[in-house]
């Protein structure tokens, strides 16, 4: 399944905030976690993570510290701030609304399954 670029972009912020809510982390580990969580379904370029992390840092949602990895290389660690927790909660509320609106349009899960199999839905699965 391919997920559209815009949708991935919209998910990126809450996704990264959510991963950091589990504890502080660094770029590569976050990217790896995203890949695990999405089973590779999200088309995600790792490099884009860094400008995003920098934006979250500027907005005060995450704080960053430079440390040294076990390999001896310098590594930047990111941790969620209080403002970040609040932003994450806000994102969750918004996604819950989006989810419930779409759910109402598409009907309860049993109906949705029926629709998926019908020709009415053609095109949406492309």
């Amino acid at each position, binding site marked *: 399944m391919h997920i559209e670029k815009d949708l991935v972009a919209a998910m990126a912020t809450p996704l990264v905030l959510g991963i950091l809510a589990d504890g502080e982390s660094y770029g590569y580990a976050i990217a790896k976690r995203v890949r695990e969580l999405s089973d590779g379904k999200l088309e995600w*370029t790792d490099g884009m993570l860094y400008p995003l992390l*920098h934006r979250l840092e500027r907005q005060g949602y995450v704080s960053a510290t430079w440390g040294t990895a076990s390999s001896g*290389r310098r590594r930047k660690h990111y941790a969620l701030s209080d403002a970040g927790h609040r932003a994450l909660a806000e994102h969750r509320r918004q996604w819950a609304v989006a989810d419930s609106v779409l759910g109402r349009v598409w009907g309860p899960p049993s109906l949705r399954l029926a629709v998926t199999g019908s020709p009415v839905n053609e095109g949406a699965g492309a």
Partner: protein
Amino acid sequence: MTTTELDSDIARWRGYLERRTTIAPDDVAEMEDHLREQIGELSEGGLSESEAFLVAITRLGSVDEISREFAREHTERMWKQLALTPAASPEEGGRRRGELGVVLALAVGSAAAVKAGFLLLGETRLALTMGLLIAPFLGAYFAWKRRVGLRPIVICAAILVVAAVILSAYPFPNPTDTAVLSVIHAPIVLWLVIGVMYVGGAWRSARRRMDFIRFTGEFIVYYALLALGGGVLVGLTVGSFNAVGIDLENVIVDWVLPIAMPGAALIAAWLVEAKQNVVENIAPVLTRVFTPLTILMLLALLGAYVTVHGGPADSERTLLIVMDLILVLVLGLVLYAISARSPAAPAGLIDWLQLVLVVAALVVDVLMLVAMLTRIAEFGTSPNKIAALGVNLVLLVNLAGSAWLSLAFLRGRRTPQALESWQTNYLPVYGIWAAAVVIALPPIFGFA
């Protein structure tokens, strides 16, 4: 592939990233760590090092795209290169090459306008309209460079026309106080009009406004350098011609000054556009040097003020004017510091010093307000007092907001971003106040 081969591959990739002005060395280090860890993991999974390198680099994404994304996030870095995409397109390159020609043409146009002003206008009128003889050309440069849309251009042109009508039609009998106030305040309005062109018409964008503040700081540095160099050159020329018995003073006053002043303005603007990387390193240095020095000066001044005058009531008029200038200087330093600050840097000594500076300036400002209100209560109003009072109020609100937000940042409650938005949102206030002084004060006080 051996490890050294891998290292040289990574070094090449790093060099490729480092050439992008929008990606800072720290960011490169961060991504290199990512790349190496990814390669390590892929190698453990059975790939050869060269295969792992290719897969890792593909997953990281195209350097162009990453660089563009960094540019979007760090406009303060993008500001260095201005064009989002590398200047590979031939059209863009042609524009660059043609740029110096456009700048020189506009400089000549502005010089001709100023020279005509020198010939046709009286001294007072010339001083009033001097900005109008330069600002349209600077604005036109940015309108051309940023390909500004028609609407902002029309609005800005309309403002210039209104300013021209007011500044040339108000019947000042001679250099009265209100005329001098207009001379001081009109350039502020004109500068903001240039700013609208500078930001490409996107004057609502806080980040573009910040770019304009940066531009202003760098422009002042470049203009001062050009003026200094020009002054030395003129001095040497006059001196050497004097030595052989030729007096050049009239040539200098009649020709060199009217041509050099507007010419230097356009060249300075062009230099800031073209050479941002060079001077950008000066702004933080200037801030670091002058913040503590200005604090010392303000404290000394406060001490002298209280001991010598025994209170603000009998303050001299000149002292009040000088103090106003000092407050403007402090505001300039604060803006400089903000523009030079790396958004992600943690709070440091310089941020504390800046808070001390702002608080000291606030104390000075309040003392002056008291002094001025006392003078107004005692002697009645005058154009100078109203103008000074207004400047003080405008600065007081700004400094109070800055102090509050600096403190909140130092205590970890707010990001430096909040202070930045406060300053960028405040920009129009200066314009509105300056416009009010130019438009309303002269008629109210009968052009006295």
